């Protein structure tokens, strides 16, 4: 099935089987491997991308359902000037250890901050609650997302 997959503002015409997952198509057809497959079961959030600005687990979302819609992956956060402020905040706070959960964390946090630019710690916890991290213990990730809020 031929669809137009719009990723990070670029349209990719792809011809795929309708049962392909969005994460698989992003990684294997388009070559954007920033999106990770962790559990492949909608539990861990490593595959989180934004669909029209809202977070979605791309491992369990059919790629054909995104035809003509806007997909944002972690590769879409940085621009020509460098890392997005949130990415820099993650580095500064030490919110990255092995790094496997980081793309998903960044996407959930991006969605949260675009809806709620000054979240409380509790709101950050809820916003990131679909993302598992086995290294950091979460504290520094939450700190990073909080420090990227414009008021602080």
């Amino acid at each position, binding site marked *: *099935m031929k669809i137009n997959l719009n990723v990070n503002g670029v349209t990719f015409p792809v011809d795929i*089987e*309708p*049962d392909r*997952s969005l994460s698989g198509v992003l990684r294997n057809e388009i070559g954007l491997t920033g999106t990770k497959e962790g559990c*492949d*079961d*909608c*539990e861990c*959030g490593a595959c*989180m991308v934004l*669909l029209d600005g*809202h*977070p*979605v*687990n791309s*491992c*369990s*979302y*059919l790629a*054909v*359902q995104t*035809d003509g819609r806007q997909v944002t992956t972690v590769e879409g956060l940085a621009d020509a000037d460098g890392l997005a402020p949130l990415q820099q905040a993650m580095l500064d706070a030490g919110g990255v250890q092995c790094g496997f959960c980081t793309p998903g964390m960044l996407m*959930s946090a991006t*969605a*949260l901050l675009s809806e709620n630019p000054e979240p409380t710690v509790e709101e950050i916890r*809820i*916003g990131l*609650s*679909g*993302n598992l991290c086995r290294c950091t213990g979460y504290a520094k990730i939450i700190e990073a997302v909080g420090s990227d809020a414009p008021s602080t």
Partner: protein
Amino acid sequence: MQFVIAETLEHALELMASGSRPIAGGTDLVVGARQGKEPLPDALVAIDRLGVLASIDGGTGEDGEIVIGACVSHATIAGHGDIIDLVPGLADGSSLVGSPATRHVGTIGGNIMNASPAMDTGAPLLAAGAAVEVASTRGSRLLAVADLWLGPGQTSVDSDELCVAVHIPRPGPRTSSAYVRLEYRRTMEIAVVGAGAQVSLSDDGSVASASVALTAVAPVIIAVQGLSEVVGLQPGEAARTVARLASEQSRPISDLRASDRYRRHTVGVMASRAVLAACRRAAGEEIAVPVNRSEGIGAGYPGDAVANTTADGVEL
């Protein structure tokens, strides 16, 4: 596999008449297929772009009925002012589903038609006396949610019929609702047990009427019978009576998450807490959605206030 994005509701219904199955967020369908539970259907019709299925009427019509389109997401329900005002129990349920991502793509229609006995929107809808509107090329019909669920994953709806909306009667004055669940963690959790209550209070603060429905203690969401027993009782006493009835009437299974004995006991506790929260809301108190977080019911942080004491000081 065939996949079509429906352009109109009629288009979707025609495809369903020829055997296609509907998909919106896919949070049950696709995840189930990936887990090997059931393969994806041979033909899918995507209904998530149909604007006609995506609106909420918060009771502005003549009959004051609240109508929620089948493709309205849990995130939208959980944050919708009219739903929070009129049927906060449903907002409690929707805001507990999955994670932010699940709540953004998961829909109320998908949740009820998936017919899991552990669904979080089922008990509040049953307690509110909701009905589901289904449509096919043969026409449309309304059926009470009490008549919808036949067993785990089974409904009384034909395979060519599509759930298009949920209808909720407008609650009267001094009437409100709440849903609470027992959970071992706060996110990506499935109710161990749960209970939804809708309560109307008399002027003296006693219960004028109550309906209570239970999650994950039977093959389907069930309504507690015999609630005329609580009419005229003050909330604390009514909650204790409901707890007893709920435990007596539940028929839970034992599985990885809980034994049948534990479920039978805890569903009474959840039912009494749902009744108490609904009574407090009916009396005008604001309890933020979801009750599980604002009252620390279920898994909470150490130090959270746990609502295990009734207004008259009796520990549940």
